[in-house]
């Protein structure tokens, strides 16, 4: 049970405080309700580039990192398709420095041309390092374009192509900031050795004066139900054939999401999972095989992906996966197998909740989804799922017409 207090400032900033006196540290986590899904199709990669620019100086403070480091703190940030999250950890007695820094960059950035031109290059190198200069680096670029026809999940957070990042202009930066980086679109979570009363005062003092801004109303094109299987074959300079297949699944808060999560565990969670045991160990068709999803807030993709043992025909490998899927659609899982994946889920949650940093970001994430208290009822939702749910949901999503198949072949 993760406890917290919540209050809202007059400018609409939501603040959550999680007190933990066992640690000498404090975490300040600021989540902005904007991700790659909110980008224009011709300016992709911008939310992530923007995350870099948030460290390039704010209106009153030339450098974000240096004063934080001087206060014994450290920080980082990440951008997903759904959101952008900034966090710093520092000795609790120095927490006001984090308020000073975070509130100033919410007030306004410095909009430095130099920072923009350098970070464009840095992000292009990040793009090259992870997605161009690595074997199989463009698998998800291809798969997203195949699986999504209208929803902006059709591009990765790094962007569709380098040119979008290279062409980012300072006016884009300003526009994006004042549209999304306003108190009314943010959630502040403070965790660690702090008292709510003190945090209230600090929040009023530093964040209170920032203009509220307009609430960003998200209206994204929703992906229509897919009624025809899509297939793509690519040849590339890679050593092994790879197989990737996805099926559309439910959005984050739907019951189907939790069922899908358990299905990925049954099929691909660990060395005793069905796909690993059958296709890697017994049939020796794949040298590795994973089943997962990204936990995305809008309707996401359940994925099975693996590399084939050299010499194995990819159609034969695909057929073997189809047989495993037929089995989960037709035969209810045993209570023992269902208990196993629920036990694992319980364990994952307990380990995740160990650090205050992780507790803070989870609270922010659940608050974004509607209510931080969802964090404490998560396990119950998994416990409620029964064997018939697994069969029903498997039948619902594992339809060939709902699938996207990528054969990524060695040239």
């Amino acid at each position, binding site marked *: 049970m993760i406890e917290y207090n919540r209050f809202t400032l007059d400018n609409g900033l939501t603040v959550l405080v999680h007190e933990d006196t066992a640690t000498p540290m404090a975490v300040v986590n600021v989540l902005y309700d904007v991700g790659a899904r909110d980008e224009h199709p011709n300016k992709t990669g911008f939310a992530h580039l923007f995350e870099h620019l948030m460290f390039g100086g704010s209106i009153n403070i030339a450098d974000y990192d240096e004063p934080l480091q001087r206060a014994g703190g*450290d920080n980082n940030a990440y951008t997903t398709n759904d959101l952008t999250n900034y966090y710093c950890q520092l*000795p609790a007695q120095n927490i006001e420095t984090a308020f000073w820094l975070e509130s100033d960059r919410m007030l306004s950035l410095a909009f430095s041309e130099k920072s923009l031109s*350098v970070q464009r290059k840095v992000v292009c190198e990040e793009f090259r390092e992870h997605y161009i200069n690595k074997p199989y680096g463009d698998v998800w670029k291809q798969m997203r374009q195949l699986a999504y026809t209208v929803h902006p999940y059709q591009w990765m957070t790094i962007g569709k192509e380098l040119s979008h990042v290279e062409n980012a202009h300072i006016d884009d930066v300003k526009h994006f900031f004042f549209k999304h980086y306003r108190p009314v679109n943010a959630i502040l979570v403070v965790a660690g050795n702090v008292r709510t009363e003190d945090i209230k005062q600090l929040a009023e003092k530093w964040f209170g004066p920032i203009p509220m801004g307009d609430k960003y109303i998200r209206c994204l094109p929703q992906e229509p139900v897919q009624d025809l299987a899509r297939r793509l074959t690519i040849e590339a300079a890679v050593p092994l054939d790879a197989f990737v297949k996805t099926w559309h699944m439910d959005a984050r808060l739907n019951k189907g999401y939790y069922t899908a999560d358990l299905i990925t565990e049954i099929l691909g969670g660990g060395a*005793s999972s069905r796909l690993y045991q059958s296709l890697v160990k017994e049939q020796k068709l794949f*040298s590795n095989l994973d089943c997962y999803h990204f936990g995305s807030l809008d309707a996401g993709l359940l994925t099975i992906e693996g590399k084939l043992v050299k010499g194995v025909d990819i159609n034969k490998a695909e057929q073997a996966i189809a047989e495993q899927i037929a089995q989960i659609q037709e035969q209810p899982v045993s209570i023992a197998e269902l208990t196993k994946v629920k*036990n694992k889920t319980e*364990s994952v949650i307990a380990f995740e909740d160990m650090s*205050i940093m992780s507790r803070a970001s989870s609270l922010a994430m659940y608050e974004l989804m509607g209510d931080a208290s969802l964090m404490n009822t998560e396990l119950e939702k998994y416990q409620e799922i029964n064997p018939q749910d697994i069969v029903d949901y498997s039948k619902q999503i594992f339809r060939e017409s709902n699938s996207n198949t990528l054969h990524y072949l060695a040239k």
Partner: protein
Amino acid sequence: MLNRKIQPTITDAVSFDLKLRTCEQYQLDNKVPVYSMNAGTQDVLMIEWVFKAGNWFEQKNIVAGTTNFLLKNGTSTKTAYQINDHFEFYGAYLNRTCYNETASITLHCLSKHFNELLPVVAEIITDSIFPEEELITYQQNQKQKLSVNLKKCDFIANRLIDEYVYGFHHPYGKYTSTLDYDQLNRAELIEFFKRFYTEGHCTIFTAGKIPSNLQSQLNKYFGALPLQQRAIPHIQYNLQSAVEKKHQIINDENGVQGAIRIARPFPNKHHPDYQKTQILNNIFGGFFGSRLMSNIREDKGYTYGIHSYIQNHMGETAWMISTEAGRDVCEATISEVYKEMEILRNEVVDEDELSLVKNYMLGTVLGDLDGPFQLIARWKNYVLNNLDEQYFYNSVQLIKNTGAEELNVLAKKYLNPEEFYELTVI
């Protein structure tokens, strides 16, 4: 009126009274030492069995790593599937890792389940059989994995730079080829297993919310095993560093980035310069605000990241600079690295920068002392390196008291480009 230009008052981390939480120690009946850190709020537990079974002790390449990897792949009463299913049923993770001197088995689980898991770990240590079929699958899949990794410039660079510094016949410098996997045989694994696990030297580390009966249960399952009885073989390896210092490799004609590694040999943790040099390293390339990051990423945008660090070895080690940079700016990146070395040799670091780095380092130490797993990791590092908590307090004192002049002496001693190996892999 709120003045947003001025940083709120801070407490200098230099004034913190940092205390390392004591680790409880006891021995099992067979003299196996156990270190225990009872802390944390979640009902979770970590137990690590560390054996002197690293690649230091193998006669043939990858025997130690393979033995360690296949520990979960079958005993005389359980198949690989049954072993995995047992741990996964309880939501537990059983990992194994092979290092140079040591090799580990690590269990993470909810505290309430540990009793079901310990006997199977004991079975693995005493009764692994390394089925031929499992070995064949492992060989095939590892070779496939290697073939993918060999396409990556960073993977190639990491292997080669170690070879240049230590020599291919040193455990720190060798790496694995397809042929090494082909030449493995089951009998060697069984022999290595018996000598270095079943009859080997083991140290146990536990952390988390420790159940009150953990000690008695550990003793029940592990206290009667034939561990710690045979002497650890004394094996000496000599460094055979490369003669040629500068290397360039084209691994992929179409590569758009180069993996750059620049490294020099450096003494081990017991050397008087070791801890002080950590401060200099932080200034140089050890954190986000370092000079290498500020110059090469934040000013020039040549790379997504550049870091320097001292490798965490028990024996002799190396001071390493590592980055992936755009293909057309690799040379410029390397020359900037040397420029930063030159500045550190020629100019004494100013007080402002030094105090920032000290505060940052001590703040990081404070954060690292938070949580049972971080605490036991620190203790493990001390125990396995024959250090004690005095090392921690010395290190904190050194961070607080080392002056800029002393760092300049170290820079002059160690940051000389002609002593560095330099490698670019495209």
